[in-house]
């Protein structure tokens, strides 16, 4: 930056345009929604750290084997050719997000998003080591001394250890985790494994330790477009202004009506527990991730004051304005219906998946060949992919051209489990039987061991 020294005025404007980050110290919160979130964290992280260690039928139960391009999920083995199922799964995931967001706002953000889930764990570690909110703030304000250094070092060591385990687990989904652990122990990790373990460890540490709410506020696209799925019947977390205002502090013994005060005692608990550092009493804001920490905090205070709960609560815009609210409405019904249909479709498709694939590659250098006998011949290279866990012998037939003759080497149709076989095939026909230059023919491949494993693919047969 080789500009002339900035005038104080410039600096002031710069400070206005670009905000230095204010660290958020969320206060610990107890209550129904906090318990739900802890349950979510335990289930999701439990799955994440536990699943790679499961074995099924002698191999790792869930393994996305990229070098072999095989994706094991318990008893199922998916191939790149099965990308359709992944596409469907992603559509279902997107629709679930639409459906649940339309129903109850940012449920995903508040209870299930990895950013929230890991941040929750990192916050828990921070509290265990540094203490709760006030002690954390005090520690950060205090000058650096040995004690502060020790506490901070302990915290970061704990964070890094947990992040490293996270990175290791992530890579364990893609390469057998037991072998990965073994090679980690005797320092024989490959360069790529090392890179990805470090990358994901660093990403976990950076996102959950340092960036936290900055991700939600400034980086995350979901945070932006989820508000487009809200309507007036969507559950939002809202402060009941009519009940709470005018806010003000008072003693428990004082009569609030006499002082002309609402139910809000202005204790700012709701602000202190907020992981994104906003004041919910200013209304719904895009920074709100719908975690309901403020509901728990406020209900606690209301209990202490002997006021009814729900000054901050899950409600809908309609209800706040005194109109009836509908859970069943076109938006949720349509989302729900499409979601169910797709789910049923995916389950049906996977249940009826045929573990064989056939690709037909026609020789393209010449349209056709004439044999010495005067027959028209087309050459095809067929790729047989046996996606099953057992070897199969297949039977190949053609349909579509009645008089055509199929020529291939018989022994090439035995395909070992999970292998790709290449088969050279000639199809011959007397040109008198061809009415047009380009004809559709079908290759039918059927397993001799299991007639249910059958696939029919179309190809072209060219003639004069």
């Amino acid at each position: 930056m080789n500009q002339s020294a900035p005038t104080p005025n410039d600096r002031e404007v710069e400070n206005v345009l670009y905000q230095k980050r204010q660290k958020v110290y969320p206060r610990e919160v107890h209550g129904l929604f906090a318990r739900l979130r802890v349950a979510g964290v335990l289930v999701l992280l439990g799955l994440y750290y536990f699943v790679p260690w499961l074995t099924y039928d002698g191999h790792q139960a869930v393994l996305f084997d990229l070098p072999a391009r095989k994706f094991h999920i318990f008893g199922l083995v998916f191939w790149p050719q099965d990308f359709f199922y992944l596409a469907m799964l992603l559509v279902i995931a997107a629709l679930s997000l639409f459906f649940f967001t339309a129903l109850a706002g940012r449920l995903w953000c508040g209870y299930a998003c990895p950013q929230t889930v890991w941040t929750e764990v990192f916050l828990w570690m921070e509290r265990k080591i540094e203490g709760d909110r006030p002690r954390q703030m005090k520690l950060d304000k205090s000058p650096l001394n040995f004690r502060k250094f020790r506490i901070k070092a302990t915290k970061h060591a704990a964070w890094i250890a947990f992040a490293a385990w996270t990175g290791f687990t992530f890579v364990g989904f893609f390469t057998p985790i037991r072998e990965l652990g073994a090679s980690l122990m005797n320092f024989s990790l490959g360069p790529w494994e090392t890179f990805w373990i470090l990358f994901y460890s660093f990403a976990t540490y950076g996102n959950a330790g340092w960036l936290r709410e900055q991700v939600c506020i400034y980086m995350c696209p979901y945070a932006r477009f989820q508000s487009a799925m809200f309507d007036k019947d969507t559950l939002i977390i809202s402060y009941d202004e009519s009940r709470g205002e005018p806010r003000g502090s008072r003693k428990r013994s004082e009569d609030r009506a006499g002082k002309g005060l609402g139910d809000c005692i202005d204790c700012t608990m709701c602000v202190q527990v907020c992981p994104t550092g906003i004041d919910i009493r200013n209304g719904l804001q895009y920074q709100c991730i719908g975690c309901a920490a403020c509901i728990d905090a406020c209900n606690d205070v209301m209990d202490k004051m002997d006021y009814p709960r729900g000054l901050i609560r899950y409600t809908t815009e309609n209800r706040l304005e005194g109109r009836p609210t509908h859970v069943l409405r076109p938006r949720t019904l349509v989302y729900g219906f499409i979601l169910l249909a797709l789910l049923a479709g995916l389950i049906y498709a996977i249940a009826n998946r045929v573990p064989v694939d056939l690709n037909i590659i026609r020789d393209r250098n010449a349209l056709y060949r004439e044999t010495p006998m005067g027959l028209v011949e087309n050459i095809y290279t067929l790729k047989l992919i046996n996606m099953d866990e057992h070897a199969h012998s297949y039977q190949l037939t053609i349909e579509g051209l009645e008089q055509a003759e199929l020529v291939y080497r018989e022994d090439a149709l035995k395909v070992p489990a999970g292998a790709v076989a290449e088969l050279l095939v000639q199809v011959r026909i007397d040109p008198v039987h061809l009415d047009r230059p380009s004809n559709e023919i079908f290759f039918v491949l059927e397993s001799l061991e299991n007639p249910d494993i059958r696939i029919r693919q179309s190809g072209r047969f060219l003639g004069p």
Partner: protein
Amino acid sequence: MGDFTFSSDFWSWWVIVLTVGNILGCWWLIVWTMKKRAGEAASGDVTHHTWDETLQEYNNPLPRWWLWLFYITLVFAVIYLVLYPGLGKFRGVLGWTGEVRYEKEMAQAEAKYGPIFANYAEQEIPALAADEEAVRTGRRLFLNYCATCHGSDARGFPGFPNLTDDAWLFGGDPASIKTSILNGRGGQGLMMAWEGQLGEQGVDEVTEYVLQINGREVNTELARKGQQHYQQMCVSCHGIEGKGNQALGAPDLTDAAWLYGGSPGTIRESIAKGRNGRMPAHKDFLGEDKVHLLAAYVYSLSN
């Protein structure tokens, strides 16, 4: 970009000025937007625009780290343009070009796969043709480099010989096959056009004779005349009995293998217009070792 050559200094400078101007422009934009303008909403206030009746926008500050990221991208651009080609004719101090990279990757591939082919090259072709692994590798090479003309099944097309039968223009022994691939064929295996010498009638007669020695039903009178022409003009290459000559690449006219087709019309055309098929040389392109393996694969097809 690394291999892009500028036709003139003008375009080189054009790119330099635009690129540098854009980088400076981005930096200036950030500095310029920091100036407070009259009538601008204060930070945290609502701007003056209203959309859809009620929708308003806050003039909220960006996070400071975003500003740093922006500066980092500018610095990255400068470093990149110093190291790599991008500023017109300036090549970058690393000397990176697509060609250099290509050569490096080819050298890497050669270092990795070269020994495999070198190992095959030390073995005799008949032995390789019996080795399943070698035949599989050879087949992959064949599909890459040969199948376009000879077909995936190596049975050829009109004008491109069938490599799976026992009819060979230049010999089917390992050495001959290897020579065919290494140095190519053609030129000496040229079939002349005989129209001018024979005339329409003469061509018809020779065609009839060729059909006769090929063992088909013919008009014997025509064929007898054709035989006389044959013994004057064709015998030097195709031989007395029409068995061909592998030293010249002259085909055997008595068997069922026809390079261009065996129908009377096609044979007539071959005699009248001549044929000039060529097999390109692959020595420089594939190298001796790969050709050796390919020859083994081709040999395995007919043995």
